[in-house]
Structure formats: C-alpha cells, structure tokens
C-alpha cells in the first residue's frame, strides 16, 4: 500500500516538475541583470521598467488581448447557438455536423492557417478589404468555434429535454424557457468553452501568422525577435501574465470552496 502511495507521490512530483520548472526558470531570469539566458549576474527590476516603455511589445499585447476578447465572445455566442441547434437535429445530420466540427480541432493548425490565407487572398479579388485586424478576428473566431461547441454539447446532452417542455407548459415563451431554464443549466459548459477559446486565441501563433496582415500579435512580435535576441522584457511580461492568471485562478477556487462550504451547511 505504502509502496503505491510513494509511487504516486513520485509520479505527481515529476509531473509538476515538468510543468512548472520551465516557468520558474523564466520568472527567475526576468530578474537577471544581463540579457543572457544562461548566466545570472545580479538582481534587477530593470526589465519590468523597460517593458512599460516598449511600445512594440505593449501594442502587440493590446492587439492580442483585444482579439482574444472579441473572438472568444463571438465564438461563445455563435457556438452556444450552434450547439443548441445541433442538439435538436435528427441523428444523421447531427453526426455529420459534429464530425465537421471536429475537423478544425484535429486539423494541423498550419493547414487551417494556410487555407484561411488562401481564402482571404481569393476574396480580396472580389471585395475591397485589407488583411489585418478584421481578418485576424475572423480567423480566431473560426478556430475557437469548435471548442465552444464541443464543451457546450455534453451539457446539453445531460439536460433532460422534458425540463424545457415543462417550462413551456408552465407558461414560458420559448425564449424565456431557454434563458431561464436551459441557459443556467448549460452555463458551466459555456464558461469552459469561453475560457478555452480565450486561451487558445491568446496562445495562437500559426494561424495568426498567416492572417495578421499589418496587425501584430504578441506571439508574432516575439517570433520576430529571434534573429537577434529575444529581450528579457518578454520574460518580465510572461511573469506578469502568469501571476495575473494565477491570481484569477486562486480567487475563483477560493470562491468555489466557500460556496461549497455554504452548500454543505444548508
């Protein structure tokens, strides 16, 4: 018994090590005096200070966050609507649509990226638009959509369809029935989908690379630094992002624990 326990301890320890040591190293070197990623020459907050004045990085961060926000909100609305629609389809078309939904997830990103680029450049012959912010948003909505559908869909399947009918019987209009009864039930799925869309959008490099035009996301800006040298300001920025996300998660989890305790007392 103890042997198993020790084994699982080692397993967990190594998993956590592989996950977090690289992040810790990155944070550590954000305080490094020299630009080197090998030698630690002394403590400084200089990179954080410089980050505040680096317009290129800050603009890229702004573009990344705005695109992530717009695209994940749009994808959540569209995806939820799509999931509800798919749920009420007959079996065969439903299977067909779900398979189509899986394709962008399984497809290598580079294929999606190149095909979006081809689509935009072809469309440009007929419509007058420029590659840039708008094409980035469209591309991000496209690859975010399946994640929302795939996380809302199971929640809908768990839902007892007679609850919706009951709401109608009790005098709800279809719209009221959806927003008052169905919507709260599938809310966890929607939130998951939204958060996944948000993170995928912030993370994305390959698809953005092909569709960005004259806008520049953070990942592209960092990639462009690689001929010379990636500035430690990026370490500082990553540290800040990591800390913010960590804090958000902590607050959310604490809230969860508190509400769980309340629930138990009741």
């Amino acid at each position: 018994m103890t042997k198993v326990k020790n084994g699982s301890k080692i397993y967990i320890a190594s998993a956590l090590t592989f996950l977090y040591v690289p992040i810790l190293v990155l944070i550590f070197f954000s305080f490094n005096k020299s630009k080197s990623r090998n030698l630690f020459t002394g403590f400084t907050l200089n990179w954080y200070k410089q980050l505040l004045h680096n317009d290129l990085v800050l603009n890229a961060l702004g573009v990344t966050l705005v695109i992530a926000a717009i695209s994940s909100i749009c994808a959540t609305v569209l995806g939820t609507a799509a999931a509800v629609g798919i749920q009420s389809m007959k079996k065969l078309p439903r299977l067909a649509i779900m398979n189509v939904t899986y394709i962008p997830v399984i497809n290598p990103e580079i294929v999606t990226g190149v095909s979006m680029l081809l689509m935009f450049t072809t469309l440009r012959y007929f419509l007058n638009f420029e590659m840039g912010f708008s094409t980035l948003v469209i591309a991000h909505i496209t690859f975010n959509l399946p994640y929302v559908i795939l996380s809302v869909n199971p929640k809908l399947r768990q839902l007892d369809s007679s609850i919706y009918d009951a709401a109608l019987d009790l005098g709800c209009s279809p719209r009221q029935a959806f927003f008052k009864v169905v919507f709260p039930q599938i809310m966890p799925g929607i939130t998951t989908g939204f958060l996944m869309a948000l993170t995928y959008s912030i993370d994305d490099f390959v698809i953005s690379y092909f569709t960005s035009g004259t806008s520049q996301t953070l990942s592209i800006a960092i990639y462009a630094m690689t001929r010379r040298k990636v500035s430690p300001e990026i370490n500082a920025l990553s540290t800040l992002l990591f800390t913010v996300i960590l804090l958000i998660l902590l607050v959310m989890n604490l809230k969860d624990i508190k509400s769980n305790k309340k629930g138990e007392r009741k």
Partner: protein
Amino acid sequence: MKKRLILILCILLMILIAVPVSAIDIVAISGSIYRTDLDYYNHLRGEDITLVVYNWGEYISDGGDDSFDTNKEFEELTGISINYITFASNEQMYAKLKSEGTSLYDIIIPSDYMIARMIREGMVEALDFSNIPNYTLVDDLYKNLEHDRNNEFSVPYMWGLVGIIYNSSMVDEDIDSWDSFWDEQYKGNILMFDNPRDAFAISLARLGYSMNTEDESQIEEAAEELMKQKSLVQAYVMDEIFNKMEGGEAAIAPYYAGDAITMMSENEDLVFVFPKEKTNLFIDGFVIPKGSKNKEAAEMYINFMCEPAVSAANAEYIGYSTPIPDAFELIDIDDEDLAIAYPNEKIIANSEVLRELNNETNLLMDRLWTDIRSYKDGTKGWIIPTAFILAAVIVSTLVIIRRAKKRRRDLY
C-alpha cells in the same frame, strides 16, 4: 459591420497612441539635432497619415535603457503616426508580401539580396530622392552596389560583416579560417547558420568560390562539404547562438559582427575574428513597396532615419554599422568594438555582397539544404512511410477484432 469594426479599431488605436504621446519628454526634441529643416518635417502634419513600417525584430533604437526612441521622435517631429511591425527573416517577409499584396506596407527594410529580388519582381517603388535630402550624407561606398545598380530603389540603413566568434577557453589556437568549422577536434562544439544562403556562403567561401556562384557543380561541391560537416555540428541555429556562446556551450560559431559585440560583453572569453577567406558583407536598406499609399511620408521617414543623430543612435543601440560618416563621428565606441564593427578597408575589400541568384540556383540550393538538414546516418527514406502503414494496419486489425468480439458477445 465593417464600419463598426473600423470604429472599434480607431478607438483602440487612439488609446494605444494617446498613452505614449502624453508621456513624451519634450526636452529631447529640439530642432537643432536634425540636418533637414523643420518645415520639411512639418509639411505633412495634420493629414492623419499612418505609416506601416515593417522591420526586422529588435532592429531599431526603441527607447529601452534610456536610448533614443526613434519612432516616437518621428511621430512627434512630423505628426505622422507609425504602425511598426516586425519580421524574423527576409524569406518570411517576402512570403507575406507575396500573399497579402505589397500595398499594405509603406517602408520595408530587407537585406541586399532580397532587395534585388524585389526589384526584379517589380515589388518596390522607385524613390524620389528630392524628398530624401539626407541621402547625400550616405557614404558612396554603400551606393550603386550589386543589388541596386543605379540606386533607384533603396537607401542603406545598416551594414555589417559575417565573422567567426569563438570561445578562447575551449580553443587553443588562433582561429582565422572557415576551415575550423570542419576541424574534427571541435566535434560537437560547432554551431552553424540555420539558413541555406548563409550556410552555403561559408562553404563556398572556404572552397574559394564566389558566394554568388550559379555554377551547379560548385554548389553541389559546397553541399557535399556541408554534408560532411554535419556530424561535427552541434546545432543549426540563429538567435540561440547568443545563449550557447555566452553560456560556453559551444566553441565556435559564425555570426554578424554587431551581434558578436553584444555576446562579447556578456562573456569575456569570446573572441571575434574575420576569416582569411572571403566573408559576407550585408547591407540592409529601406525600400518602399509598390502601391504604398503614403509614399511621400515614407520618404520622409527614410530621410529621418538618415539623419546622422538618428542613424548614430540606431547604430549604437543595435551594434551594427552605419553607412553615414557623419553619424559614425557621433558614435561613442571603444577601440576593440571599433575594429569589429568598422573593420579596415582590406577586410571590406575581401568581402562579398550576396546577390540575388537565378531561380534554378535558388531551387537547387533549397533542395540541397533540405537534404542536408534531413539527412541522418543510417535512416532510409522508406522507413517512415512503412512504419506509418504498419501502424495503420495494426490499429485497424485491433479495431476489427474488438468489434467482432463485441458483436459475438451481443449475440448471447
């Protein structure tokens, strides 16, 4: 929908631009540091122009470490705003321009051979030099070169040489030749360029051929040498050279002189030399892509970048060399760095600018390079497809067996 998008974009842009402008240090802007008069820089003010500048990453003085903030100063001086974006390689920039069209951009800063290709393919505008008075300040050495014979399309920004950087604590001799990159005693401690043009240039120079040769047999000979070298090479890298050399993980690497200065400031053991064979002199220059909507403003930007004060600030920040003698006078540089960034004429005379090659040569080089990079001792080409088919067969038999079992179970 499109209007609203544009509106949102405008508001965002305004927020992004408003923040830095309010923080600007007014003292830094005094007209006296510029050669061209302020009327010239002011004459496009208020026309609501946004220039799209497409440059290498980390290739401009951007205000970090209290340096000169080039783009911000230009915006203040002229009232023209700048959308500054960056690329990682000439080829990446070229591919993007080809697929998206050139008219989105106003200023691009490619290297010599890429400028030549863009000129040949009609991707750049002829410059109106009457709008670039500071062009006369550029040293004649860097004008009318191979890539832009009559200097109609480009203005040089920075130049530099490729040389050898090595760690004197890991190397006992004084290295002075590309031959060291083929020396068995440095096996596993050699770094090489991870792009075909630069890697072939080294191999060709070592064999005594021109880096711009279009002779198939010479290129194939160079490829064979690179293939032989592969077992000695620790890694094919670009920017990782910084970390590996600074951290003492590799003994010897080729790199650009300006970057070598940066590395040497981090690790005292590092030494930089120019090889006795030929080496590559590169010039990165400004071009205006075909169909640019703000050509006059773009020329103003080029003129601004040729201001000695601006060029000096950039050269000092980047570590590369300015082609403007008046700017050189303003640079504060110690003797050791001087010999690297501004080597004597003999070394410059022994260098070669990369020229755009014809299509067949480009294709040949790309193909040979792919062979070199993907070649491994003992692996045969048929292994991967066979393994793939085998895996597919195994997985499908397993699925079929399981299905059959299940069906049999369901029968009872």
